[in-house]
């Protein structure tokens, strides 16, 4: 049986193609302005990748597709939709069965989720109203300092005099703070470390409210930022585990829900 999950986020579009043996292929692209076009493209490219793994696979061979994420309703070819909260819990549980606390840090939102041993959501907190505490904040900090997002984490770990203090929480004001710090001659890496610290300070109360339990797992694009992960671990006092490609977890969860749907239909 072949199923697929597609996660249309604000910044990235992700697909996981799943067979009974496990993940056949996964793929991520930028969503851009045309999210319907992005949905088609990421799925087509994921199928091409899957095809090179398992000869002769085409979109028609996919038995069931579940769409999730902020843009899940616009996916023209999905069989059904599931919320991203449920998909993140499900996907992370599949990779780390011992997970109880999940922090999913996306480009435009952030979710703290508590789940049970079956990957079922017990409670969650979400911020999608304020850019502080989301990938957007880091994106702005990176562009203000003229660095690439993928270099962010590593550079933030190489501080000169420790993390700088960015006093404003608001992303717009923080951008100004960053410019001022730069004018005062504060080292770029110290400011980056300060931004990692600031985003963790913003997110931590959400984790406190849901109650933090072992094991702690992080996912979403921001999980690729090692600077943020180190700050989080220090603040939470636990190791933060993550999948090697933390951006595909939502799509993975969706593909797992698709597999459930097929099994249920076959039983009926």
């Amino acid at each position, binding site marked *: 049986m072949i199923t697929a999950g597609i996660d249309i986020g604000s910044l990235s579009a992700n697909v996981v193609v799943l067979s009974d043996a496990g993940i056949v292929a996964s793929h991520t692209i930028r969503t851009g302005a045309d999210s319907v076009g992005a949905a088609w493209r990421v799925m087509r490219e994921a199928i091409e990748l899957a095809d090179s793994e398992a000869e002769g696979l085409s979109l028609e061979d996919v038995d069931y597709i579940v769409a999730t994420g902020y843009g899940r309703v616009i996916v023209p070819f999905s069989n059904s939709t599931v919320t991203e909260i449920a998909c993140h819990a499900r996907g992370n549980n599949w990779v780390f069965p011992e997970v109880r606390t999940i922090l999913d840090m996306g480009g435009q939102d952030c979710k703290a989720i508590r789940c049970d041993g079956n990957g079922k959501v017990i409670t969650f907190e979400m911020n999608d109203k304020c*850019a502080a505490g989301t990938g957007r904040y880091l994106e702005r900090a990176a562009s203000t300092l003229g660095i690439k997002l993928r270099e962010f984490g590593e550079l933030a770990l190489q501080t000169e005099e420790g993390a700088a203090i960015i006093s404003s929480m*608001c992303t717009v004001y923080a951008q100004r703070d960053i410019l001022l710090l730069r004018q005062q001659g504060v080292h770029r890496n110290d400011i980056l470390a300060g931004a990692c610290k600031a985003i963790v300070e913003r997110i931590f109360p959400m984790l406190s409210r849901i109650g933090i339990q072992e094991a702690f797992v992080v996912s979403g694009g921001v999980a690729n930022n090692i600077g943020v992960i180190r700050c989080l671990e220090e603040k939470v006092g636990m190791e933060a585990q993550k999948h090697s490609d933390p951006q595909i977890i939502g799509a993975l969860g969706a593909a797992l829900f698709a597999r459930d749907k097929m099994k249920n239909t076959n039983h009926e």
Partner: protein
Amino acid sequence: MHPAELESAECAGKKAIDKAMKISGISKNSYYTVVTGQGKSLIPSADETISDGVCLARGIYELMPSVHTILDLGIQKSLAVKCSGGYPNKIISNDKCASGAGSFLQVVSDVLEIPVERMGEISLKSTEAVEINSTCAVFAESEIISLLHTGKKLEDILGGVYQSLAMRLYSLLLRVGIDRELALVGGIAKDKGLGQAIEAQIGHKILVPEQALFVGSLGAAIIGQEKVGA
């Protein structure tokens, strides 16, 4: 007036005072300085620093004694002051989030590439204001880009921008209590689009003093005068 953004606050403050002295023809060693505003702590040479709310209340009493509610909209701070007889009774400010301050308009201006000074005027042409769902200025920026992509008219987008800002300012005002005599002051007070959007929210006309930008500094000057007993 001198913009404080591009240089140190102290330097900007000195320049503004020097220029004002030159215009008024007063000799330099005869003044007592009271500093107010967001950068007040950055001027160590001042004789005294006094909070924004106190200075605004005093300033507006001089200009418009009947006013009992002040809304001061600055670029990085909005302040609602309930006052009587030149003294503040209640002050509520927002300097934490750009969504409720002039910065919100600045962000919109940057994305639309239209100067802030022209935006209000354009918004007044709106016939069908588009609702802006995002509160956060950063998210509103992307929302505006997609609204432009879907072919919404510029004036209707701006109409929505002013409406959403006015709504947040209204809730700040509600927390101090709104009087019929309400003055809008600060750097963006003269923006007609904003004035009209606030009037639509509160349901009656608001007052904008001619010297809207100087209400706080006028208040500071009056307090200074009282101190030196002039």
